[in-house]
């Protein structure tokens, strides 16, 4: 079929241009499009402007690998597993030395900025942010770039007096308009209908807001079978442009109903990424020296992948232990 959206990760990621605004779906250490992100790094993309709400290991990896010039997020980290050392290092070094700028937002305003993008609106009102240094104009880390970098709005926030009711001062936040949206899903129909389980997070809004949406999925299913339960479908096929079948495509993050977080991955990555040299070695071994996701999975090994599998009713793996300081061998 000439109009098929099905492609390999390499083909899909090849559609992404240097310098674009890129959104990664999921939430911190859950359902992150890791396989597509590994491929982004392999293809050596540069100067990306990343949006995540919130970000997890995928952002720390991309920042560490030097693919990124801007991030706008409310969080970049690994939850209780440990700290995002690459992100932390770059921010602490400062944009003067790294050329990398990070701006802080909040869960709510990030969500509303995506909602504005999904609605085709230039901004959205919010009652949040007041009283916080998040809108202190002296502390806008993007100030020198505004008006120059077209990926950024001319100002961080604006204010308007409500003209309709009590006249309160309302804050406006600018739309997020990703060029590309990367999502990892449990299931996608062969024409692109996306079914997310255990939480959609902001993936629907980001797909609606984006110009190009790439979905990797644990499995591709017959489109017609998804019509049996439309309430369970999250994103309509009309806004999905490329589909990649990629089992364990979110590893080491968790995918409801498929697998849990891989604590061994986090232990290994966190130990390695504490220092820049260690991060570089890790990246070479686990990303750059591998051809594709199949090689990555083979290197992780079947035993470990099987040990992560989720209970289909609970959605997670009830046997897995989650404290890295008490982690045992894969069994």
């Amino acid at each position: 079929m000439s109009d098929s959206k099905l492609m390999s990760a390499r083909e899909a990621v090849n559609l992404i241009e240097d310098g674009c605004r890129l959104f990664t779906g999921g939430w911190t250490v859950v359902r992150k499009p890791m396989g597509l992100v590994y491929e982004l790094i392999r293809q050596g993309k540069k100067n990306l402007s990343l949006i995540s709400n919130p970000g997890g290991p995928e952002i720390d990896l991309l920042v560490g690998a030097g693919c990124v010039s801007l991030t706008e997020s409310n969080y970049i980290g690994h939850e209780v597993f440990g700290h995002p050392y690459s992100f932390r290092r770059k921010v602490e070094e400062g944009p003067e030395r790294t050329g990398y700028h990070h701006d802080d937002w909040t869960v709510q305003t990030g969500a509303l900025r995506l909602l504005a993008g999904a609605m085709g609106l230039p901004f959205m009102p919010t009652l949040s942010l007041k009283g916080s240094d998040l809108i202190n104009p002296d502390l806008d880390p993007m100030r020198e770039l505004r008006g120059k970098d077209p990926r950024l709005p001319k100002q961080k926030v604006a204010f308007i007096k409500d003209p309709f009711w009590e006249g309160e001062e309302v804050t406006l936040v600018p739309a997020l308009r990703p060029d590309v949206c990367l999502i990892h899903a449990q299931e996608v129909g062969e024409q692109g209908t996306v079914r997310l389980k255990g939480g959609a997070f902001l993936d629907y809004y980001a797909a609606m807001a984006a110009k190009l949406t790439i979905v990797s999925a644990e499995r591709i299913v017959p489109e017609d079978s998804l019509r049996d339960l439309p309430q369970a479908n999250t994103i309509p096929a009309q806004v999905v442009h490329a589909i990649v079948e990629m089992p364990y495509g979110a590893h080491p993050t968790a995918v409801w109903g498929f697998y849990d977080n891989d604590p061994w991955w986090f232990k290994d990555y966190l130990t390695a990424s504490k220092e820049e040299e260690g991060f570089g070695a890790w990246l070479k071994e686990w990303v750059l020296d591998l051809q594709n996701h199949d090689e990555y999975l083979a290197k992780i090994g079947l035993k470990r992948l099987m040990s992560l599998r989720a209970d289909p009713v609970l959605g997670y793996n009830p046997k897995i232990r989650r404290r890295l300081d008490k982690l045992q061998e894969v069994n």
Partner: protein
Amino acid sequence: MGLINPAPVVGGNAEKAPCSSLERMVVAASRLLQNGQMVLVGTGLPLVGATLAKHVHAPKMTVVMEAVAFDSKPFALPFCVADARGVYRTPWMPTAVEVMGQFLQNRRIDVGFLGGAQVDKYGNLNSTCMGSYLHPEKRFEGSGGACDIAVLSGKTIIIMVHEKRRFVEQVDYITSPGWKCRDHRTGRLVDRRELGMWGGPSAVVSTMGVMKFDPESHEMYVDEYFADLGVTLGAMKENTGFDIRIDGARPAPPPKAEELEVLRTVVDPEGIFMKY
């Protein structure tokens, strides 16, 4: 009915160990939550405290998390707000647009429950970085929805380890506004109500006691101290980075055996946040 299903005991932590200051803090915090309230919690200690309250004395409290979890019945402690454990038997699956943009902003959240790295005498919280924001000494992950929760909840409860470097005269960065916070127009600190804001911090629960805020000056004072752990008011003053009022402070009622038992065997048997 209304209760979370008890989780299976998986750890060996149910023995009669002495109460740690972390456990003491969580027990005290959980007691500030009431049945019937709608509570928005972040991950970590707030989640542990709210789960404990729900098991022990507030079965009809609604616990909501930023990512998706909404009044669910978890068997096991979620270790982040998006964890599959947090949506088990949920009646509804919202996104952050609904939780943070609708429930929270539309004033339907009674209590926001927050942690942080620094708190100051007006209850401003910093969970962003240490040192200057633009050139930080130590950069943290980011504050998630902490600012939203501090601005938009009916009231907030703060939970934080009591150390001099954490309880400071003025936070390095106001992530979550307290009673006297930043006026974006002037850069000065003003009463939050001058900015048209409602809510505000009602209590800070630490490893040493429970602090509240003076209704007029809005400065933090010690309301209760953990005498049962050997905490003294002198020690509290010493471990606080600003001059804190202690007159009128009372010893807090000690934890009950049931509270510790539930905390250790049902809420966080793995010690994910309690680090047994």
